[in-house]
């Protein structure tokens, strides 16, 4: 989940970025700065594929800065209204059918979010890429490849992240996550760029765990509104979590 937010905000920045000015720390830092500063209101479709089943969900999502996130399931009907609120490093799920708010305990953070290949931790964690990682940039004619190595102090499960970015248009193509043994664990690919609210963004994001055959989660952005005035800290309240809609 974090990734689609990063993507959203990263590209609001990159629309105005100068490709020739390729300071990797600045690109990533700006990306994070923008992510922190902006708000977004998203409509999206999530398709979870496993060897046993395929499940399609319609979701709405709001974010405000790095600290706040809110997601609500619109369909399928059985799950309609199930919502997740993220505030700082805490997370709650709300189930309208039983009218219960359940805090996601730290032990469940690595658990799957609503059966997808995103973990609850993906929604919550706030790793600052430029603080936690040393960045090495290589460049071809059409692409930048940022290789991120965690610093000594970094608290992370990754041994390395490879971040592939195309130059024209300046859009991400993929992120590959490696464990400490150098094995590929997870890959996120970005595709089908579209213009939302005046900004070009890859509209399809696919997560594929490399150690689990046949599993993937696709997020398809249906609509995005940036910097909406209607998104305030109030959007991320317990009351709103339990509100009828």
């Amino acid at each position, binding site marked *: 989940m974090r990734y689609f937010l990063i993507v959203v905000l990263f590209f609001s920045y990159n629309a105005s970025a100068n490709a020739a000015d390729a300071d990797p720390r600045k690109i990533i830092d700006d990306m994070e700065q923008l992510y922190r500063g902006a708000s977004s209101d998203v409509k999206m479709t999530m398709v979870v594929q496993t060897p046993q089943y395929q499940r399609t969900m319609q979701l709405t999502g709001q974010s405000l800065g790095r600290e706040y996130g809110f997601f609500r399931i619109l369909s*399928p009907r059985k799950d309609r209204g199930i919502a997740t609120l993220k505030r700082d490093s805490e997370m709650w799920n709300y189930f309208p*059918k039983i009218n219960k708010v359940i805090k996601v305990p730290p032990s469940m953070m690595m658990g799957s979010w609503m*059966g*997808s290949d995103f973990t609850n931790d993906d929604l919550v964690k706030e790793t600052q890429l430029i603080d936690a990682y040393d960045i090495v940039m290589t460049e071809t004619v059409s692409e930048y490849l940022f290789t991120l190595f965690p610093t000594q102090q970094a608290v992370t499960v990754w041994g390395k992240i490879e971040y592939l970015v195309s130059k024209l248009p300046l859009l991400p193509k993929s992120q590959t996550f490696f464990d400490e043994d150098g094995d590929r664990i997870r890959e996120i690919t970005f595709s089908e760029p579209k213009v939302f609210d005046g900004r070009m963004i890859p509209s399809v994001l696919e997560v594929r765990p490399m150690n689990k055959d046949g599993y993937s989660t696709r997020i398809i952005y249906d609509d995005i509104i940036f910097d909406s005035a209607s998104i305030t800290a109030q959007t991320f309240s317990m009351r709103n979590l339990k509100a009828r809609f």
Partner: protein
Amino acid sequence: MLFVLSLSMVEGSWSNIVDIFTLDHTGHVQIHNGDYAKRPKIHKTIRDRLAVESILNDRPEVASWAPRVFSPGLAYGAAKTAPAQIFGIDPELEPTVTRILQKISAGSFFTASPNSDGYSKAMIGAGLARSLNLAVGDEIVLIASGADGSIANDIFIITGIVGNVTSFDRQGIYLPLTVAQEFLSLGSDVHEYTLLAKNKHSNEALSARLQMQIPSLKVSPWQEIQATFYKTMQSDKEGNMFFMGLVVFIVFVGVLNTVLMSVLERTREFGVLKSIGSRPGDLVKLIFLETVMLASLSVFAGFLLIFPAIYWFTEVGINMGMAVEVGGVEFDTMKGEISAYVMLMPMAFILCTAALISIPPGLRAARITPRVAMGSH
């Protein structure tokens, strides 16, 4: 006598325990998809239910069967939370394979239809009722993982409390099958078929035959499902047999002595018999028949004496007052069992051994010469 009684008690007690747990939950034979019995996963379901059910209906050895679904879940009472085991059972078929109707300690058995407020019905184990402080008529909230990765969550109304706090299903929550399938997003799939055989002793043969008919699924007799229990039972029986063997051996040393003595005592008579023309073979035959007849008589007398006792043990049994737990199954009455195995096996064993024992003294009598025999005192 003792042998028959003891064997009857051992067989009876075990048969009693086996009945208790096969009729409590396990059934005589179970059908699963792959290794569900060992490694349950919510998506290891039986899809082609029609095919399985028509086979089960066609087999004459099958007395009854019932489909089931399972899942772990989290149950919420008014103020507390507890882990729960969800059992989705068919309200019509389940009572034909288990004693669940007799196990209801409060309230009543449920139906698949929702109550007047639209809530589905549930029955919960006594342990769950106690830890969540719930009673019949209360609401219980359940959360579990659906088969499609969704988070299953719903409210149910408790219509009954099942078993006591020591039952295997004390942390269980029973839902009507169709309700459980919808709750867990399983469609019409089930995880298990449990069936009772008409003859409980031939369940392994039935299981093997069904396995041939349904090669795509795993058919297991209860001996496989409850392997640990079965092994405990077998080793207990073996230990008992060894002990019985020891007792019988000591008894036979005594019997041998008696037969030998009676032959020695009558050495002079055998000498006379030989001197008037009896052949050695006749003497062996004589002693053999004598012993076998004596043994038959005593076995028959023993049978007459022990049968009422065994009958009483089988029908009434000794109430032990306090329930004893064996392999997780409780039983409070020690019972015997009447079967061909229990009655005839010891009899045949005793007759054979008696016959065998009569041969050495017989041979001794046959070999002796009349002069030596008549000269002995």
